[in-house]
């Protein structure tokens, strides 16, 4: 029977080797050695894989910028999606002297509020949150208002298209607010412009996202907007295959459908965060309220047109859009107005 055991172990090892040898490791080896004691440390709690080409990746890239621009020691953890795990992760960072910790989603709020009083010298930032409470001054909500660029997208879609489909992963604010903006934008052009929302119920089912896109196309829509992390890839793919238009979310997604993506909404979270992080590092950060990023923060949230699209957004329309910017920034247009 010992022979059996040996065979088992051998088999498992062989499997591991075979599978592992399929490709070269691309990851850099873990960093050895300690930084100087006073090093500035920034940590990230990501609710999903940081290579999702969407929401989580924006945060990861912001973290990378802190590393290159501020020399910060960075680290991230993809937390198990259970409230039980959040507090521990915050504490693990804070215990190790991280001064800047970003919980990348509103779901981290309760945990941050619970932990923050024990670590007064650490700042806990929360993405997609409007949290501010003077009694826990070191927890600060950061809201990047996706509804504003999406308002523009909706406007463009209604001007250029016959109908639009919006595909979301799950119904959470970063998703639903962006859709609200899109619908408001579209309805500003034409209150009867057909636009609907589909939720997949998960972040991983690329195939279902693609299928949802196709069902919009079959229904007559020729504009798509996906906001579903990993699964969002399926939306770009549908654009490419069925040759309908769409927009890129959170980063430059042109490559996924080079002729179909008319414009990308870039969330350069880093541009917003590096400044904050620099203040935290310098010890000069004095929060007075939650922080909102919008189109007004031109280096954080902006739209890039794709000049190589099959039908680039025409200049007249771009001019109209430019006018919209001003109205949005001034508050004249409420992109988050309740949808009728």
């Amino acid at each position: 029977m010992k022979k059996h055991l040996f065979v088992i172990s051998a088999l498992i090892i062989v499997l591991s080797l075979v599978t592992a040898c399929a490709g070269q490791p691309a990851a850099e080896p873990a960093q050895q050695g300690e930084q100087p004691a006073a090093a500035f440390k920034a940590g990230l709690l990501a609710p999903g894989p940081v290579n999702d080409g969407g929401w989580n990746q924006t945060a990861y890239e912001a973290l990378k910028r802190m590393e290159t621009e501020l020399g910060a020691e960075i680290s991230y953890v993809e937390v198990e999606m259970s409230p039980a795990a959040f507090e521990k992760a915050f504490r693990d960072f804070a215990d190790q002297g991280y001064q800047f910790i970003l919980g990348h989603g509103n779901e981290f709020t309760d945990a941050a509020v619970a932990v923050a009083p024990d670590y007064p010298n650490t700042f806990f930032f929360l993405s997609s949150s409007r949290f501010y409470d003077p009694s826990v001054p070191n927890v600060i909500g950061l809201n990047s208002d996706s509804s504003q660029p999406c308002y523009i997208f909706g406007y463009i879609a209604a001007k250029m298209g016959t109908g639009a489909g919006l595909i979301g992963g799950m119904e959470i604010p970063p998703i639903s607010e962006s859709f609200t903006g899109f619908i408001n934008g579209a309805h500003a052009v034409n209150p009867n412009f057909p636009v609907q929302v589909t939720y997949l119920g998960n972040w991983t089912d690329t195939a279902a996202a693609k299928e949802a896109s196709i069902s919009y196309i079959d229904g007559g829509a020729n504009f798509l907007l996906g906001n579903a992390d990993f699964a969002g890839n399926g939306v770009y793919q549908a654009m490419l295959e069925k040759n309908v238009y769409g927009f890129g979310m959170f980063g430059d997604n042109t490559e996924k459908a080079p002729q179909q993506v008319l414009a990308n909404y870039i969330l350069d979270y880093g541009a917003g965060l590096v400044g904050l992080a620099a203040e935290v590092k310098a010890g000069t950060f004095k929060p007075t309220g939650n922080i909102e990023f919008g189109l007004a923060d031109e280096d954080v949230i902006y739209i890039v047109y794709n000049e190589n699209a099959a039908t680039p957004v025409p200049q007249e329309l771009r001019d109209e859009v430019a006018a919209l910017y001003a109205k949005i920034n001034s508050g004249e247009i409420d992109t988050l107005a309740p949808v009728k």
Partner: protein
Amino acid sequence: MDFVSIKKRLLKFSRSAWTPFAAIPIALGIGAILLLIAGYDPIQAYAAMWQGAFKDRTAITEVLIKATPLIFIGAGLAVAFRCSIWNIGAEGQFYAGAVAATAVGIYLGDLPRFLLVPLVLFAGASSGALWGMLAAFLKNRFGANEVVTTIMLNYIAIFITGWLVTGPMIETEGLFAQTAKISQNAWLWRFLPPTRLHTGFILALVLAIVLYIIIFKTSLGYTIRAVGINPDAARYAGINVKRKVLLAMAISGGAAGLGGAVEVAAISYRLYQLISPGYGFDGIAVSLLVNNNPLGVIFSGILFGALRSGAEVMQMNAKVPSVLVFLIQGLVVLSVVAFGVYSYVSKEKEE
């Protein structure tokens, strides 16, 4: 009891108890090879993992907190599996429990603590039990295979939860997909401040012990085991097999539902769309790992809790993707299986 039989029992117990732990090095070893190949330093990775799980009192309590839902679910599943009911639906039953507990915790929030806490727990347990009994009913009444029905019921429970927290039970209309916090009167006591260790963990231990006693020391457990081994013989002995199936699913679902209630009442204080990161599926392995012994579930639950807890620090400090922990969990199970065969054969040789 004579000395020989005591020795025999001790030997038997140690055999069943040590296998999961002996299996860990094997699983970690294979993981280490994979880490090396992928260009990581396994020693650093595992050191970080160990640190994350056991570096101080807080870390250890966090492991226990993570183990709590696994113990609830695993101990319940042990009963179902002993009855040969393949309940893959603990995930859905956990959700059902969390939903009911939250509802009670919010809408009956004015009740005094000594009433509300038991009520919240009771609501969770009974809701989970009912969700489990639905599968048992379909099996008894229509002969529907419980593996299939429980999988389907998982999805349905999760979607219903999603609807509740984005619709009827949402805290603020149009805002975050979460319910309001449950009343403070429903919170479980965190008895070891500043850690978060809560009475729910104690409850999990008690439940595991109680289920152990039920299974192995009572006439009820006798019937459940009999049905699981040989339903024909059980019927012959006057046992109502369908009723036991219903009961086993009720216990199993009830335990999972109680786990969901404790998670809400002790940790999250409110309901989210994804209240469970797959505890129901981990619980299957937790129970099977110790041969469906509710007492053993305490150990395997803590083991899995430690792996999970450590994995996050491993990612934080050694930059190793935490998904690796799933692989290690799977390998632990397979190694235990292999060890089980080994000890079985060596036992035969002895005799």
